[in-house]
Structures are given as C-alpha cells and as structure tokens.
C-alpha cells in the first residue's frame, strides 16, 4: 500500500526505475541461462548457433555423462565435496566453541577475544602463510585447503553476537542446577541458535566450495584439484581436456563440456541459496553487523 503522503511517481520516474532494476536483473540472469542452455545443447545446436545457445532445441545430457564418467572432473567433484563437508564441520565446531566461550565473562575471555579481533586488522601475507603450510607438511594435502580456513573472523563475530544475546539468567540457572558448560552449550545455547548456526555453516560451505587460490598455492598434484581450479584451467584458460584426463573420448564441440563444468561449480550454490536468502533476510546477518 502506498502511504497517503507519498506522491504517485510520474511515468518517467517509473520507466527509469524499471529500466535500472530490470536491466541489472537481466544482466545477472542472462549469462547464467546461456551457460546452462549451452551445457545442455547438442553439437548440432552449437554449430547452428555459432557457439552459444540461448535455447537448446535438441537437449542432451551427454556433456554431463562425459564429466561424471570419471577422470579428472569426477575426482575434482569428490575433492570439492570432501573439502566442503569436512571443512564446514571443523570450522563450525571451532567457531562455535570459541564464540560461546568468549561470549561470557570468563577467565581468559577478554585476551582471546582481542586475539581474534586483531585478525580483522592485519593479514599475515601470502608468503609467510605458504611457508607455515609447507613447514607443517601440508603441501599437496587436502588439509591445506581445510585447516587455514577453520575460523573466519566475520562468522565468529556473527555467532558471538548472537550468543551474547542469550539471556545470562537462563544460563546461570542451568549452572546452579549443576549443568556443565558443555551441557549448557549443547542443550540450551545451540538449540536456541539453530538458524544462525545454519547460516554461518552455509557461509563456510560456500567459502570452501568457492576457494580457488589456496588450491593454486598449495596443490601441485592435478589429481587433487578441486572444481574451481579445473574451471579455471579448462574453461577460463581454454586448455583442452585430453582423452585420458576425461577417461573417455572428448566431444567435437568443447563448449557444452566447458559449460557443464561451469554448471557443476554453480549448482551447489544455487541449491543452498534459497536457505541462505531466507535466513539472512530475517536480519540475522545485518543484526550482527550492527551489533
């Protein structure tokens, strides 16, 4: 409903608004649609359209069969899924524990909090990070993609702000009844903060799935490459996938295969996106930022 005091916008204004918002939305949607269409297109569609297909008239899943048929890409998907699942689980456990422990006035709470906040101010740099990972013997190990991302300062702040708003009386009464801090965390605090934990978990998952530079930096072994590095090498840099890397004979028109790689990188994000959006529009994140 338009409030009474608000004047009706002139047609000119409305046209400009529609143009700006509509244009912005189309520019986002069209490339994604073209990529999905092309990944589903047959060789004939691609030749007819001269490269990119707006609508595949002979849709086929051949590109995906080729990709999932094993070889480099099949392994890359497994790597990415592993890193994302294990990474998210570890990161959530570490972050929840630290955020809860520093959300109450306890021993060492203050200095540990400052330790975390300092990371917001200064980044240690690429070379020292590389040297540390190398010294730990993590080069060419998937743990080099997981462990350095096990605590994000932003996610920490979001969780801690939420935990701080859990009423202290509730926790004190549980303590008086003899509950240990572990029990309180598990039985009282976590059930109260399911939504925010889910959002932070999804943020971590998206981060692990999207991580590219760590893999470039720490992994030389192509069999351990995650999806993002494959995407860069075979789509962005345009190197072709050889038959033995694919595990099957490569198709005559590489576009659909390349676009299928793009879609594989895109789909998990598109799947969790509705959940992410539902929760962050409830103000979980913005509330935390303001606090």
């Amino acid at each position, binding site marked *: 409903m338009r409030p009474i005091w608000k004047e009706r*916008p002139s047609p000119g204004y409305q046209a400009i608004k529609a143009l700006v918002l509509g244009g912005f939305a189309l520019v986002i949607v069209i490339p994604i649609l073209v990529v999905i269409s092309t990944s589903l297109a047959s060789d004939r569609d691609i030749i007819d359209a001269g490269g990119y297909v707006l609508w595949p008239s002979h849709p086929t899943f051949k590109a995906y069969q080729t990709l999932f048929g094993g070889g480099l890409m099949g392994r890359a998907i497994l790597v990415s899924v592993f890193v994302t699942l294990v990474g998210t689980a570890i990161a959530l456990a570490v972050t929840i524990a*630290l955020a809860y422990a520093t959300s109450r006035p306890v021993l*060492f709470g203050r200095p540990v909090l400052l330790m975390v906040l300092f990371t917001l101010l200064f980044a240690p740099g690429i070379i020292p990070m*590389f040297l*540390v990972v190398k010294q730990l013997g993590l080069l060419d190990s998937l743990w080099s993609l997981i462990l350095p991302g096990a605590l994000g300062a932003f996610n920490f702040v979001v969780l801690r702000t939420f935990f701080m708003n859990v009423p202290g009386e509730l926790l004190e009464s549980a303590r008086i009844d003899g509950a240990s*801090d572990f029990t309180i965390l598990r039985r009282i605090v976590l059930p109260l903060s399911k939504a925010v934990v889910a959002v932070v978990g999804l943020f971590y998952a998206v981060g692990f799935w999207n991580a590219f530079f760590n893999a470039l930096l720490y992994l030389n072994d192509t069999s351990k490459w995650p999806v993002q590095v494959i995407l860069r090498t075979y789509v962005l840099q345009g190197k072709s996938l050889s038959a033995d890397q694919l595990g099957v004979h490569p198709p005559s028109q590489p576009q659909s295969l390349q676009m299928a790689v793009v879609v594989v990188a*895109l789909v998990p994000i598109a799947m969790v996106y509705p959940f992410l959006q539902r929760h962050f529009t409830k103000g979980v994140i913005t509330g935390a930022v303001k606090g």
Partner: protein
Amino acid sequence: MLKSSAPKRQAKVGLPLAAKWRRDWQMVLLMIPGVVFLLVFFYLPVLGNVVAFQDFQPYLGIMHSEWNGLQNFVNLYDNPDFWDALRNTLLLAAVQLLLFFPVPIGLALIVDSLVSNKLRRWFQTIAYLPHFLSWVLVVTLFQQSLGGAGFINNLLRHAGLDPIPFMTNPDTFPLLVVAQLVWKDAGWAMIIFLAALTTIDVSLYEAAAADGAGRWRRMWHITLPSLRTVIVLLLILRIGDILSVGFEQFILQRDSVGPGAAEVLDTFTYYAGVVGGDWSSGAAAGLAKGVVGALLLWGANSLAHRLGEPGIFQRRGA
C-alpha cells in the same frame, strides 16, 4: 542449594585465579581449538614476516637464512615492477571506491521506493545471488559473454561489426574490474543499506511531506542523513581493505590482460615469491601492504571518531 562450586559469572567479582579456573575451566577448554588455530595459522605467519628482513633460502629455512636488514625493501624501491604493482593497486582501488561504492546505495534507494513487496523480493533474490559465486565463475561468465569468442562478440560478428576486446584491453581494464565487482557484489552490498532504510521513522517522512517537501528534499534531508553511519562504516571497511583490491579477480585475469595493467601488490607478492622463488622480495612487498593497510584502516576509523561517527572499533562505554 547454592553450591560454592558454581559462583555467578559477574564481570566485576574479584575471585582469586584458582577459583576462576575451577569455575571456568570448561570454557577455557572450549577456547583451545580456536586459539591453537589462531596461533598456527595467524600469529605464526605474522611472525614469519621476518623473512622480509632476510635473504631467505628455502633449504636453509628461517632459522639459518642470513639477515640482511632493509636490503629487500631497498631492492623493491629500485624494482620498476613493484612500482607498477603499487600504481595499479592505488589506481584500481580509487576507481573501485569512486565507481562501485555509490552503486549499492543507489540501488537500495530505488528498491526501497518500490511499493510492491513482491517486485522487491524478486529483485533481491536475483541481485544477491552473484555474491555467492566464486571469482573463477564470475570471470568465466564474463569471458563467455564478453571475451573474444564470447556471445556478445559473436553477435557483433554476425552483424558484420568488428569484435571489441573487452576482456584483454589493458586500457579499459579498471572499468572491466568495476563492472565485474558491480555484477558480483552490488546487490549484496545493497542489503545493509536496505536494512538501515527500514529503521528510519516513517513519521519523519510524513511530517516532511505535510510541510511540502517533495521526494528529492525528503531524500536529501531524511534518507541520506539516516544512512550516514552505515555509509561511514562501510567506507572505513572498504578503505582498510583497499590494498587487497580483489586478489583472485586479478590473478585470474593477469594472463589475458598482462601484468602491465593487472599486476597488483598481492599478485606481485605471489609471482615474485612463490612462482619466481624470490621469497624475500615477495614477503617484503606483502608486509609493506599489510602494514599500510592496517594504518589506513586505523586512520579511517579515527577520522570517523573525529566526525562523531561510531566507526568499527568502538570505544568501550561510549
């Protein structure tokens, strides 16, 4: 039955250390994994920056490499590639700040003015999505759309026109970078302005309208002043992060555009150090960047305090 083993956690009670330990040991235990992580993957690398003051040789390690004082920084000073990287970083940061920063504010104002909630939700759903896509994916989508063999240039060729080298022209690279940033993050950056807009008291608008203020005057005298705190906050965060400009974005496009336009401090560090084996120069450039970045953040924050804004690092009790 109030047992002494569960004293209340009040900030001001002066318990002896042993009693505090007995009360809080489980909480301290919970801190351990996070603290270990911070020590190993943050504070140890921070200390590792000492290689910037060494003639670092990987086979000797940090302990046995020779110290050479500020020699690495002197070398950087004489290295034209470093100055290129610095110039590109500052140029790209300035262009991003000028051209990107206002976009989400403008978008948020338009979206906020929409009367239809349905339309608003639709637009938000589409606009937030690209934020969650990786830089590799974003650059790939741009390449497939605007690259030499991308569909825009295919259309141009079909129409008998010359293709335009959007993706490889070093002169227009800053604009390309901003376009990618707008595509990926303008929608997401809008979210916080939208949240701030909903907190504005509607009666202010009503009263202003009753006094005869039109839409522009209401925007100028009510909306924008209400957004001031948020704008300042985001500007500070942006300035603190300014030297990082968007590292993956550049490393992905350095090959196609060339280091002349796409080399920034972070890519310089990576290529000189990790790829080129000149660890100490790379670390020196990285350290210089980190220190300047921290100073910028601190400076911007104190400036905000001076202007009477809360900023990010708030003073206690304020």
